[in-house]
């Protein structure tokens, strides 16, 4: 069961990579796609559902494009 996930506003993202550097689980990467500004935006790649919703990516994002969602009921 996944505990948390993030949503990235790809049009705001400028591909600086600060969230990738900050993520303790190493589950954020650059997307292969381009956004309309021509940057490779960040994307979450989390097949093992490791994201705990710590919010480090949100804290380091200079463009406020990350929203962190957490499960309402804590999963055991």
């Amino acid at each position, binding site marked *: *069961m*996944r505990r*948390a*996930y993030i949503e990235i506003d790809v*049009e*705001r993202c*400028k*591909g*600086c*990579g*600060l969230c990738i*550097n*900050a993520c303790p689980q190493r589950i954020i990467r650059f997307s292969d796609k381009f956004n309309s500004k021509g*940057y490779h935006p960040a994307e979450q790649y989390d097949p093992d559902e490791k994201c705990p*919703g710590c*919010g*480090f990516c*949100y*804290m*380091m*994002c*200079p*463009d*406020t494009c*990350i*929203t*962190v*969602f*957490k*499960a*309402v*009921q804590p999963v055991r």
Partner: protein
Amino acid sequence: MEFTAVYKMPDSLSKKPFTYCPGCHHGIVHRLVAEVIDELGIREKTIIVAPVGCSVFAYEFFNTDGTVAPHGRATAVATGMKRARPDLVVFTYQGDGDLAAIGTAETIHTANRGERVTTIFINNAIYGMTGGQMAPTTLLGMKTTTSPYGRSPEREGYPVHMCEILKELKGVAFLARTKVTTPKDVLTTKKYIKKAFLAQTKDIGYGLVEVLSTCPTNWGMPPIKAMQWLEQNMVVEYPLGVFVDKVGEEK
């Protein structure tokens, strides 16, 4: 499974995308200021005074009233606004070229008078908007477009330490220097910015928070490397910490 947004864009930011370069720390500090305004519940009575510099459009990004001051005069404009309308919360957002070069007199005298305004001071050791010229805060030996062989103390003098200058003045209520390169520092910075606003709302005196920031474009480095450069060089020259704290801990 139901999910709820635990971290999302603060209400005090307009939804406009920032015009800063990728990896610039301006965006992080903008978000922290907006979060503090949200937490204190003062959005409807806050005025931002934007400087001249990269953050000249800062009033566009905040969901508050705002104006732009002539170069270096942001604290003087803020003083006028605060004296005319003492019920409002007025803060300035200035860079090092604005606050430490052309606006030195305004900054020192605003602090000395203990005006009830707050200043967020972004120190990236370079002039960002105009293309990477030497600032008063540029480190010794650092190469800029106007010091291509590195800053030398014989020719250009030594870096200006604004916090160390201002801490001797009686009107200052909160004064701290911090950085935003790790999530821990981001949380510390938010605490300091909140105290600088409380110094104003509790009518104690002038509050200033100096944030060491990167300028990846003009330093000529990728954003991650710029953060490492900041940790290795700027923190050595500009020691972090709280210099003046008359606000006290929150109950």
